[in-house]
């Protein structure tokens, strides 16, 4: 069996991702579009929240993936830091805009959902505040990659930023456990028998979670391929300038 480190070779990554990417895109498209259509058109209103419950199919998957994206960036950045594999640094760079967009979508849909249900667009509670700070970390991370000219230095500096930002990703996920306050309800488990989420809502939610998960993977693969090409382009242009 091939070692995972083989994929640190850009050529190996490009050939493998070329095969994997169409399947990932297909699963992402079917699950995301199917889950959203299922949730929007074919689920009933909640007896307390009315039709606003349909926002769950966007809000929860994007919020989950926003945090997971940062943790994926952390792992890739640590691989860069320890083993100096360029592909892992480029994968972290490629994931950042995806995570930032997912965070923005989660913040936006959460505000629109919160206004009719909680009576406010925003509350400075631990979970929302740490999630907003995570979004700012995403913007800072992207800006740092753009601002630092040397890519290896940029990868080193963004790794440090990623490690620091992980604190807020973890706080955001476990804020209710840490402080037991805020507008969000306690974490719920799907399909545990005592769950307060009816299967009518849970199945399309699981479909959307799967879809957004695959969408993230597809976008990261696609964008990492772009970053590898961009790195080669810069190397060739640098060679031309020297010759």
């Amino acid at each position: 069996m091939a070692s995972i480190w083989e994929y640190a070779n850009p050529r190996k990554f490009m050939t493998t991702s070329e095969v994997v990417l169409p399947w990932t895109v297909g699963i992402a498209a079917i699950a995301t579009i199917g889950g959203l259509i299922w949730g929007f058109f074919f689920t009933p209103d909640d007896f307390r929240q009315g039709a606003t419950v349909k926002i769950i199919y966007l809000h929860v998957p994007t919020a989950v993936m926003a945090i997971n994206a940062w943790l994926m960036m952390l792992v890739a950045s640590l691989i860069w830091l320890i083993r100096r594999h360029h592909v892992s640094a480029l994968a972290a760079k490629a994931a950042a805009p995806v995570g930032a967009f997912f965070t923005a979508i989660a913040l936006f849909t959460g505000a629109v959902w919160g206004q009719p249900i909680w009576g406010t667009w925003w509350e400075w509670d631990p979970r929302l505040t740490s999630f907003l700070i995570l979004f700012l970390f995403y913007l800072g991370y992207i800006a740092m990659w753009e601002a630092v000219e040397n890519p290896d230095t940029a990868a080193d500096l963004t790794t440090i930023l990623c490690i620091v930002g992980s604190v807020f990703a973890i706080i955001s996920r476990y804020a209710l456990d840490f402080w037991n306050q805020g507008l969000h309800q306690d974490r719920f488990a799907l399909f545990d028998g005592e769950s307060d989420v009816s299967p009518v809502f849970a199945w399309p939610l699981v479909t959307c979670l799967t879809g957004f998960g695959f969408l993230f993977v597809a976008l990261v693969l696609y964008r990492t391929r772009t970053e590898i090409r961009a790195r080669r382009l810069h190397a060739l242009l640098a060679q031309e300038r020297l010759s």
Partner: protein
Amino acid sequence: MPDLGPYTFEVLLAYGGALGMLFVLLALSIWRSRRTQRRLTEVEERRGRL
């Protein structure tokens, strides 16, 4: 179109905004990929001619 009752504006706003942002993300990713690939091909062809 399902009947969204008194929450029509909120639900449509959430879906419209979220899908719009997703579209922007996809469009930006595809645009940057194509631009990079085009420029790389140009440089590689130029070097091949030398």
